[in-house]
């Protein structure tokens, strides 16, 4: 990944950062879910609903065929009628109930959202109420289902009225593209937004590795060349523990600080450099001096 791509990714990330002030006055960092992950989650959910419904319908259909054979048409037999009722209610629930049920749960997210690590939250920092979830999911009807049916039925080809309806529906569909919080109409009406909610595991502390500050001594001038961004990259490399990558990084660092790289001790060298660089940067941080990356 080239550095400009990384920079752009970081800028996108920065743009989505929000601070939410909880009722007791704590500022909590939140990241708005990207449009891509929201669209992906929706797609996953629709697939789940679609294939889930089809699967159940097939099972019901197999049961229904047996019933159809037994008596010939006209009068609906009681069990068959029961099946028809179930099918109608099933389709109704698939359209309106699926999203509602999952977003009311403690995770505040449908299976699709969970897979992509996002969830629904109240925009004002209060709690996510049942009414809010209901409101945002009722709006989903004009935002997702009606445009889908409209396109599937080829409604946009029907003259001026069709075109007008198409534009009108496009307003709903494209709504999230035109505001900075990526709100869709349902979010706006319900006072909610969708934020990232990944589960992150706590990694090992890195500086518990044996202290090698005696073997590798880095002077201030050598530590000045890098900033916080490089430190984090180095942290990632150490956590991945890939000998090939560590070797390359060691060579790059040695070139930069003018050392002669040896071989066989890549990890030891990098751990020592990481500890020294972090100590250096954190010390400066305590004095209020921060260095974002090697260019600053």
């Amino acid at each position: 990944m080239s550095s400009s791509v990384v920079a752009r990714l970081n800028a996108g990330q920065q743009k989505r950062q929000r601070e939410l002030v909880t009722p007791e006055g704590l500022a909590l960092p939140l990241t708005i879910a990207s449009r891509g992950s929201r669209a992906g989650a929706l797609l996953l959910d629709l697939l789940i609903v679609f294939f889930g419904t089809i699967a159940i319908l097939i099972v019901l259909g197999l049961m229904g065929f047996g019933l159809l054979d037994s008596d010939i048409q006209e009068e609906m037999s009681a069990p068959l009628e029961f099946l028809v009722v179930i099918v109608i209610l099933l389709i109704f629930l698939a359209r309106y109930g699926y999203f509602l049920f999952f977003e009311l749960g403690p995770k505040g997210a449908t299976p699709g959202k969970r897979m992509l690590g996002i969830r629904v939250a109240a925009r004002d920092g209060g709690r996510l109420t049942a009414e809010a979830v209901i409101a945002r999911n009722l709006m989903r009807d004009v935002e997702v289902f009606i445009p889908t049916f409209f396109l599937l039925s080829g409604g946009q080809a029907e003259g001026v009225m069709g075109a007008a309806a198409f534009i009108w529906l496009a307003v709903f569909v494209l709504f999230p593209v035109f505001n900075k919080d990526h709100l869709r109409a349902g979010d706006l009406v319900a006072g909610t937004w969708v934020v990232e909610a990944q589960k992150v595991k706590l990694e090992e502390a890195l500086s518990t590795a044996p202290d090698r500050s005696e073997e590798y001594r880095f002077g201030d001038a050598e530590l000045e060349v890098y900033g916080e961004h490089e430190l984090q990259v180095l942290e990632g490399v150490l956590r991945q523990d890939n000998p090939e990558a560590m070797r390359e990084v060691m060579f790059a660092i040695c070139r930069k600080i003018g050392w002669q790289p040896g071989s066989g001790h890549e990890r030891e060298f990098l751990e020592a450099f990481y500890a020294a660089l972090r100590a250096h940067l954190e010390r400066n941080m305590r004095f209020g001096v921060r260095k974002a990356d090697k260019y600053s």
Partner: protein
Amino acid sequence: MALNLFGHNEIDPPAAITAATLRSDRFRLQREVDWQRLEQIVDALERNRPGRIADDDLMELPVLYRKAASSLAVARETSLDAATLAYLESLVRRAWFQVYGPRTGLFAWLRHFLLGGWSASVRDIWLDICSALFVMVAGTAVGWILVANDREWFFSLVPGAMSGGRQPGASREELAETLQGTEGAEGLAAFAAYLFSNNTGVCIMAFALGFCFGIPTLLLLVYNMALLGAMLWLFSDAGLGIDFAGWLSVHGTTELFAILLSGAAGMHIGRSMAFPGSKSVLSAAAAAGRRSAQVMAGCTVMLVVAGILEGYARQLVPTTEGRFAIGAVMLFFWITYFAFVPRPRDHDGEARR
């Protein structure tokens, strides 16, 4: 780690704190146990298994949450350990969602809703209900007048599939036929379920379209009621006006009431966005949306009732008097319910307005 026999994970003490060379890592190792304890509680809550949490842990949840939050604030100013920062941010956020998450279960919410929450929100949007009612009456009149002046209008208003033989030129007998009941109850459950799912779709659309300042909702109401007006004219022209009204009133009082409420709910959102008052447009829309959502949840209930009435009662009660009686009782019931069930007292001190 010990065997997990009791569904309660032991947390390993962190590696020797003094072994860490960096001050920020020592800070982290000192607090790690608390963070992981919080994580276990949050995990259990997210899985919806609060029973797994030890009483002590639950008592300390707020304290642990605040500790983690303050750790995060300190770590951001002193530590450059990206992994720890990411972990803490995720942990605090997850804990926050649980501490401030929805605390009412579905059944508690339903009770609150049925015993006053619903009727209170209906009363809150009385102004929109009045305007929706006006629009609906006007729509019916428009339908009637259009068709009375020019019969061709009937065919533009009523889709062919829906008329089912009910059209200008049909004989009185043919029209009377469509108002008949049926003998047995076969097939009626499916009919009722179909009506319910169809009508709820219309209601939800009326609500959701309110978003654009309520105008599409108005159009939808006018169109649907014009259709009704056209039908009304058709039957009264054939001298069956009273019978048709009876046939319609069985479920119509409930169904039209539900459509009225959902249209009003949609217009309420539209009106709040057009005239937000002292609030911002966004917060006005959010407040209106939450209020309307309760009304809409109620509409679903009404449409279940309407579907059953339409599917069963209408087909099984053939007399016009009987049909009027059922319709009147339902109307009386709804009006009494909305007008007199008091706003529930909030146990959790949350403002519902």
